[in-house]
Structure formats: C-alpha cells, structure tokens
C-alpha cells in the first residue's frame, strides 16, 4: 500500500518539478519576448477605433413595488418566509440583543477575525439538526450553491443536472467550467438514458469526477425531485450528489430536516446538501452540510466563503433563534404541509390559472390559462395582476427571470408561497382575487 502511495506521489512530485522547470524556462523566454514588444498601433488605427459604450440600448427596468413592513395590513404570499419567522418577536429580540453585542457587520472574512462565536454555534446547531458531521455557513443564499459547485467540480469533470434548476445552480455550473448534461425535468428515464450513453461513450469513467445536481423542491416549478431514484442512479453510475434543499429544509419531514427525512433517504447517500437561511429561517445566508471530508474543503476553496465577509452576527443569531423554535415546535411543519396541501387543492380548482407544484411543496407556480403572448407581454400581464392584487391587500410575486441568461427560461408565472399564517379564509380570498384580477387584466 505504502509502495503504491510512493509511486503515486512520486509521479506527481516529478510533475511538480517538471512544471517548475517549464515555468522557469517559459518565464525567461517571455521576459525576453516582452522586451521586444512589437507595437502595431498606428495613428490611423487609433482614429478608426470607435469603442462602443458599455450599455448601448435603452433599458427599461420595471419599478418594483415598495414594501412596508411585511404584512402590515397586507397578506404577503410572495415572500418565502414559510414559517412566519420574519415576524416572530422572540427571534427579533434575540437578533437585536446580538446587534447590541457585536454591532452590525463582521468586518472581515471568516479567515480574518470574521469568525464570531455565533457562526460556530450556528454551524454546530445546524449540523446537529440535520444529523450531519459538519456544516459551513455562507453570507448569501445565492452565493452558497454558486460557490459550492465550483469548489468540487472543475474543468474536465462532468455534471448531470436537471434542466429546471434555479439560476444560482446554473451559475455555479458555469463557474466550474465542467461539461454539463441537462436532463429533462424530473424525468428519470431521460437521465438514465443519458447516463447510459455517457457510460457507453466513456464520458463517465473512474478517472473523471461526475456529479448529479438536483433541487429537493424546484424553485422554478415547485415540484419535488424523485430523490430515491436519483440516489439509485447515482450509486449505479458512481456520481456524487449535490442536492439543493433550500426550499425543503424547514418545510418537509417530520422535524423539518428536508427531503431526505421526508423520503427516509440516509443523509450520507447525499454527498453535499445545500440549504438556505433565507426562506424558512427568514434571515440571510446559506449553508452546506455533509461529512467533514466534504464540507471542510469549502473553508479553503469555497470562493464566496473565503473571500467575502461573514454573515452579520445579528442575522446569524436570528437563524439560531429560528432553529430553536423549529426544534421546539416540530408541529409547525405539519401545519405548513397542511396549508400547502389546501393551497394545491384550491389552486387546482381555479378557472383561469393552471398550477404547478407538489401537494406538499410550499411553493406553487400559477400560469395564466389561455394566454398566448410573447414573453414580455406576458410579464406585463402578470405584473398587472400583481398590481391588482396589491391594491386589494395581497402581495403576490411575479417570477423575475433574466430571459437571456437562463439556460431554458421558464414560463413566467406567479409564485405563491404557502405559510403557516394562511388560514382557509385567506386562501379563499386569494383565489377569488386572483380570478378577478385575471378577468380584469384580460379586458
């Protein structure tokens, strides 16, 4: 074994030395060359050089609605604070107390005195809650998965991802520069076919790192992923799984530990779980959870972790306080699931909208029926509906996608978030107003 090791290491050791020699030579050659820099720029060229401005065309940015305090005389079904923690006085008090101990900013990245005891506490608590060895906390939800993917996947690796993954995952994949294969949304047959093909063409081989990326509940569709099947395929084809549980932690499973708990999939089948503190926990930031071997790596390689200031301590404390409540009152999850189910039933009965989303998913997408319009007009139509609802005391969110940057831009829709604060009357009112808004905006 040791002998093998030596051969193995000796070979790269020689590579290191060889590379140094090559770099040394190249350096000498380059410095010689750059001294003889050949200047080709003539006056004529300079006169003909007409640089274009940074932004060429007029851009119209819709002015978003300004919100006062969430739910101030308003039913907010657009924000994704599923458990109502944004209004929880207990959390607020603890956050404020923390503010008066630590100040607002942490004034440094984790490496340089930006690690405050509350960060360690949150990491430990999250690890215990999710029953994993280790977690690491990022200071922004978007950057969590967008940094986690390129920390492992590099150029030359291969990634299999669902075509409907949300934008941060797409950017993480872009940043990794790996080869990516998108399979049809939640279509396991398609995935299997693609894996088979890749294995056949030796695109999948034991020397090449391969990853499978999916979301537990898709932000863009509200559907749940068939995790068991994914795990089975991943084990068969030796893929590591990165699962985005942003929307499912704190909403699914008996204790709110997410899809793995809900489906009874052992946590260590999933190589890396990525969660968010911005939805159920109603704070800011995100986290990665998994084994020590996996997560520790990000503390040196996660770009958004290493090169950015850590999460403000008061928001960290808010997340801890949220976790306390979640642990003390696991029945909140059941309540939320009930509301999600009711919403689903109510939405399926709508005349003018079709709904996408699983029964238990806290996110539902509503697509207006019978509107054949170009993308922009449709967005405008939805924004009119949003305005109509807002005037009547309900805040719904129109999905904001950047059409040209999305991989396959999803259909515009209204994103409705279930939350424990919704009661039957609210749901009836919501449906009623949505139908009326449709008719109003159609005419």
């Amino acid at each position: 074994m040791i002998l093998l090791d030596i051969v193995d290491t000796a070979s790269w050791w020689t590579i290191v030395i060889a590379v140094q020699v090559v770099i040394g030579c190249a350096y000498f050659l380059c410095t010689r060359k750059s001294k003889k820099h050949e200047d080709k720029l003539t006056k004529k060229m300079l006169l003909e050089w007409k640089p274009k401005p940074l932004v060429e065309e007029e851009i119209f940015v819709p002015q978003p609605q300004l919100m006062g305090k969430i739910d101030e005389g308003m039913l907010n079904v657009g924000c994704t604070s599923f458990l109502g923690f944004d209004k929880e006085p207990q959390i607020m008090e603890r956050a404020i107390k923390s503010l008066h101990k630590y100040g607002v900013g942490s004034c440094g990245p984790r490496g340089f005195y930006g690690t405050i005891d509350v960060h360690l506490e949150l990491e430990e608590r999250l690890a215990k809650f999710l029953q994993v060895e280790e977690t690491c906390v990022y200071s922004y939800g978007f950057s969590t998965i967008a940094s986690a993917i390129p920390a492992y996947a590099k150029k030359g690796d291969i990634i299999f991802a669902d075509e409907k993954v949300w934008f941060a995952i797409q950017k993480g994949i872009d940043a990794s520069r790996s080869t990516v294969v998108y399979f049809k949304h939640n279509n396991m047959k398609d995935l299997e076919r693609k894996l088979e093909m890749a294995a056949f063409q030796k695109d999948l081989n034991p020397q090449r790192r391969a990853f499978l990326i999916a979301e537990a509940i898709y932000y863009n569709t509200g559907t749940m992923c068939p995790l068991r099947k994914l795990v089975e395929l991943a084990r068969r084809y030796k893929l590591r799984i990165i699962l985005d549980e942003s929307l499912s932690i704190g909403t699914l499973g008996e204790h709110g530990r997410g899809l793995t708990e809900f489906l009874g999939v052992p946590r260590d089948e999933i190589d890396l779980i990525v969660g968010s503190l911005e939805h159920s926990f109603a704070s800011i930031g995100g986290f990665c959870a998994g084994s020590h071997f996996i997560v520790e790596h990000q503390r040196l390689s996660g770009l958004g972790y290493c090169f950015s200031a850590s999460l403000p301590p008061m928001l960290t404390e808010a997340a801890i306080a949220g976790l306390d409540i979640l642990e003390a009152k696991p029945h909140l999850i059941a309540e939320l699931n009930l509301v999600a189910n009711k919403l689903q039933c109510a939405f399926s009965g709508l005349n003018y909208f079709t709904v996408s989303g699983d029964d238990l998913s806290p996110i539902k997408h509503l697509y207006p029926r019978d509107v054949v319009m170009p993308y922009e007009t449709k967005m405008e139509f939805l924004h009119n509906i949003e305005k109509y609802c807002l005037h009547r005391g309900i805040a719904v969110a129109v999905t904001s996608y950047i059409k040209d940057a999305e991989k396959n831009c999803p259909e515009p829709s209204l994103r409705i978030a279930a939350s424990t604060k919704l009661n039957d009357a609210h749901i009836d009112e919501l449906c009623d107003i949505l139908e009326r808004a449709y008719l109003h905006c159609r005419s």
Partner: protein
Amino acid sequence: MAAVQVGGGDNLNESKSTSKISECNGKKKTDNGKMGGNQNGYVNSEHKSNGVDSAADMEAPAPWMDWAQLDIFPGSFEKCSLLTAALTHAGLYLLMFLGFVNQLLFTPKVATERNRVGYAPLYNPFEQFYSRYVYRRVRHIFNRPICSTPGAELTLKERATDDYNWSFRFTGAEKRCINLGSYNYLGFAAPEGECADAAEAAARRYGLALASSRAELGSTPLHQELEETTAKFLGVEAAVVFGMGFATNALGIPGLLGAGTLVLSDENNHASLILGLRLARVAVRVFAHNDMRQLERLARDAIAERRWDRIVVVVEGVYSMEGSIVPLPALVALKKKYGLLLYLDEAHSVGAMGARGRGVVDHWGVAPGDVDVLMGTFTKSFGAAGGYIAGAARLVDAVRARGHAHAYAHAMAPAVCAQVLAAMRAIAAPAGELRVRRLRDNTRHFRRRLRAMGVVVFGHEDSPVVPMLVYTFSKMAATVERLTARGVATVGVGFPATPLNKARIRFCLSAAHSRAQLDRCLDAVQQVVDELGLRYARAV
C-alpha cells in the same frame, strides 16, 4: 494633455486630433461614461476631409503616453535579497518534504471519504496535500473565533489543539487584543451608538429580512433611500445595492460586460472580480500589478487587433493584500487617450480614502464621472455588509435588468441598510471628515514607525492596509502567535492568497485606534521583529 506633449513635434493636426479626443471625453463627463459611438467626434472621415494628413503619416505609430508627466508609482514593493529568497524557498520545500513524509505515515480518519470506493478522487492530490500537511501546520492562526464586536479591540476565544491542528477545542479562556485585523477602517463597527440604533429601528420596522429578491417583493423605501444616498455620496447619477459585496462583482459584471468586450485586469484583482469576469465570458488579459506601461502596451495591441467592441480596464482602488493604491489619474489619462472604459472596485477604499472619504477617486481628485463603473462594498468602512454599483443611470439600469443579483438574490436586510445609511451620513457630516483624517494620520504614523524598524512594508503611504513582509510561512505563524501573546490581533497571509514565498503580516488600521493603542502595537511589533529577525529592508 500628456499626449499633446508627445506629439509636440508633430504637425498641428495631431494636436488637434488629440484635443478632439479630450473634448469628447469632456462630453463624456456629462452623459456619464457613455462613449456615444457615433457622436464622439473622432470619426475618421472628418480628419480625412481637412486634407492635411498624408497617408504615410497615418501609418506612423500612434504617440505613446508621456508617463513622465504623471504619477505612476505602483507602490513600494521592495525585492528581498537573493539569500532571503533562497532560504524562503528552501524552507518551503522542507515544509513540503516533511508534509510528504507525514502523509506517508499518517492519514487521519477525517481525511478519508466513506462509501465512495471506485469513485474518481474528489480532490486534486496537490491541493489536498497542501491543505492537510502544509497549511495545517499554521491553521491555528487563521479563522480564529472572536466573541465581541470587531472594533478597536476584540476578544479572542483561545483555542488549543491536541492533535497537531487537525482539530481544536476551546480552552475557555478569552483574550482582549487590540484589533489590527478587521476591515473596520472608520470605526463604524460598534454595538451601540447612532448606527446600531438606526439598525435596530429598521429591523423593527421592516423585519429582519424580506425573504424575496429586489425585483420581486424585496424593495423597501429604505433600499431606495440607500441607493439614492449612495449615488449622491459618490457624486454620480445612480446606484444599485446588493446584499453581499462578493456577489456584487460576481453577479453584476455579467450584466455589464458581454460579447465583444476585452478586459484588461490587474493581476492582483480580487477573486470576486475574476469570478465575475469568468461568468461574463469575456476575453481577459492580465497586466502586472499597477503597471501602467504594460497596460498601455496591452491596450495598444488590443486596439490594433481591431476586433473588440470595447476595452474595459478592471482595477481595485486599494489592494487588500499589497496595500497599494491604483494610480488613478494616470489611468484616467490613459483611458481618455485610448478610449478605454474603467471599472473600479473600491471595496477597501470607499470611506477610507480621500479627504472626504469618497474613496480613491477623492484621494486623487479625479472626477467621479471619469470612472465608468464605481463598485464598492459596505463591509469595510461602513461596518455593515453588501455592496453597490454606481455610475450613469443607464448603466445602473443595465445592472438591475441584466445583472443577476437584482432578480435572483435576496434583498439586503433592512438593519444592514440602515447601518450603511447612518454610517454614510456620518461620513458626510463634518465629524466624518475627522474620522477620515484620523485614519490617515494613524496610517502614516504606523507606516513611518514600521519603516523605521527596518522591516519591508509594501504599498503606498496612505493606504490603511499595511502588509509587512516576513516571507516564510513559519515566520508568519510565529509573528502572529507572538503578537497575540502581546495583545495584538493581526492576520498573516500566505499562499494561495499571495505568491508562495511572499507570506506577510497584514495590519489594517482604523480611525477607532487611539495613538496610545497604536504605539502599544508598534512596541509589540518591534519586540517580535527583534526576536524573529524580520528586518529585511535593505536601506533603512
């Protein structure tokens, strides 16, 4: 204009054309950084028509910048002696060799992956080796937890290790240290006072977070006010703010730069800028740190290639690892001469530099409109979190519409917004200038005394980031340990954040430090320098 002097011996037409360029740049200031492609005056036919140009003259090389007229000092980067370099390398190889032996003998349980037999190895072997067997030896000086505000002083939670830094445990002891490690340049990191009160009020009024993106339901009047105030503070038309400085670059740049763009990027640019450029899929060429001459060569080559729609120079205001300041007036002159665009990351400089705290733009007395994109963060001088992109209204609209953060990333927390607003107002108030001045005085005092000790200090006189070179990893660790023992908290920076043999100690000064505190730190530094032999400077 410098170019006029170069072309001084040439015919009249040359100087005329240069003045035309500067004229069009004058115009640029009003419509803020827009190089109106067709109305910008240097249309070739116009020059042809006046009939003075001979074809041969047009084939002559375009005049170069006259750098003698401008300050292009890149910062002081004293080279170490050959002996030091050789010893540093030797030390590093020794460290690696020891690590290598160690690796053969001992692989701890935490360093093995379970249940993934037959899978491709997850990590690059060298990276893994480096982090486990080289970095681990100095791991205890990084990520050190604190349990107080990162103000002028901080409280360290002491850690101990029983297994050679594989893991740590808390000893329960706490140590109060003077804080020379946090980016609290203006001392706004405070648990009480105006800013904290504003933050509390905002949290109570708007909630802790909005759980929605800015483009959806995450905009409050507070965000709008912050954007307006930021724009006014910087003296530009508009600004947009995001919840994380890193994401501001990484997600904002792809909204601004796209196909047909060539980026000339400083070699020491921050990871977020590099990531943003990668996500924007633009062509990037790198120039040596603050090297205006090389930048000019690259720009000339690029223009001569005639295949770029625009050329953007991406630089930082103050470099956080080098302590150097970008030579902005020279850069602006270069930009005007060659029609380049400028993206300036003021993460470490906004608030901390310039008489009025408006950043390097203020420090050098450059008009804010001469910089096309002003980016900065609120993490440092403002004691908060987040970042902004500011400039012409149209450009900011583009960042909102096409940048990724506005549509997808969640809105900045209201409490954080309020902290930034309060800090920004405090800087703009008369007392704010005192803070800025105190920071500058502290910086100069600290740098002067360090240099007098005979250590190698990088960067510019006025930069509040002060790197002191110790070259080797082990000296870096020893310095940090010994300074901590004397009640001074600083950070050491080594590979991969710096070149392998350029490990350094970085001091970040703050307006919150009193002279007495600084002198205590300096005395401690002096003792450690004596003990470890850190006087590497060749001329005192």
